[in-house]
């Protein structure tokens, strides 16, 4: 059971009140890009064991989208943050580093920091 705190309305609820929206911080490759990039954007997703960034929607609450940083193995929630960012904010990264010192941040869409 995940307990998520919506950064928009401040409500802390359990996961059935929310909807998972898949991996976060994807870079869109649209018309005019290579077929490989487009394929990766459409179909290829990370499936990490450990730290993961996801989009969630507070479906039964305020209805807003937001981001969640969590661990797929222990189900620990590192934090939630607003939807209108393309990378996780520093305080979330700091929180993750303090909890997972060995974790190497990967820039969304491949590559490493």
């Amino acid at each position, binding site marked *: 059971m995940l307990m998520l705190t919506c950064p*928009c*309305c*401040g*409500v802390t*609820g*359990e996961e*059935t*009140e929310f909807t998972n929206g898949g991996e976060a911080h994807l870079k869109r490759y649209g018309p005019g890009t290579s077929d490989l990039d487009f394929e990766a954007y459409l179909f290829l997703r990370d499936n990490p064991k450990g730290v993961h960034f996801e989009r969630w929607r507070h479906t*039964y*609450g*305020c*209805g*807003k989208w937001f981001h969640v940083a969590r661990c797929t193995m222990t189900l620990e929630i590192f934090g939630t943050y607003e939807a209108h960012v393309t990378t996780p904010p520093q305080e979330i990264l700091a929180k993750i580093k303090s909890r997972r010192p060995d974790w190497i941040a990967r820039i969304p869409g491949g590559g490493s920091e």
Partner: protein
Amino acid sequence: MILMGRSRMSEAVSALDGLVWDQGIARIEEVGPQGMITLRGDLGSGTIKDLATGVTSVDMPGQSEANCVADRGICWMSPDELLILCSYEDVAMNLQRIQKGLGDAHALAVDVSEARATFRISGDHVREVLAKLVPVDLSTEAFKDGMFRRTRMAQVPAAFWMCNDHMVQIVCFRSHAQYVFDLLKTAAAPGSEVNLL
């Protein structure tokens, strides 16, 4: 801005026409026609606050709160949405007042009275009855008077607040009215006290 009108050709009937059930550990009552206006916009703006408090004569609620007196009130729905409660007869007048007051502001006001159903459950076990249906901590320390919560009730969206310690008011979609009434009846079945809350 669109003015949503209302047909005056027929008598207003709420979803379950005021159905009451009081054979269990709480009294369940479908509240007759209740006026509701959805007001969306920048809640930080003075215009929206003044209009909401002006038509309801109650104070502006804080985040996740509701201020209700009888059939009037303001419920905080989301960072950009308020639910304005008023008597069913006053909706057209209030809506017109809001539309006029909004002027060119980027905002939306719509009459949603017909889209919703309202329930009141009362009795000593209201917290318990509700706690069986919603994924929310309803202990007296966690859920206090004046708090407003949008969540799911079993499988449908619903919102509720405590009118007082022995009464909860619930708002759901009109098409879910029978489902919600049946749910509440089951949760309040005779002899189903848990005596936890």
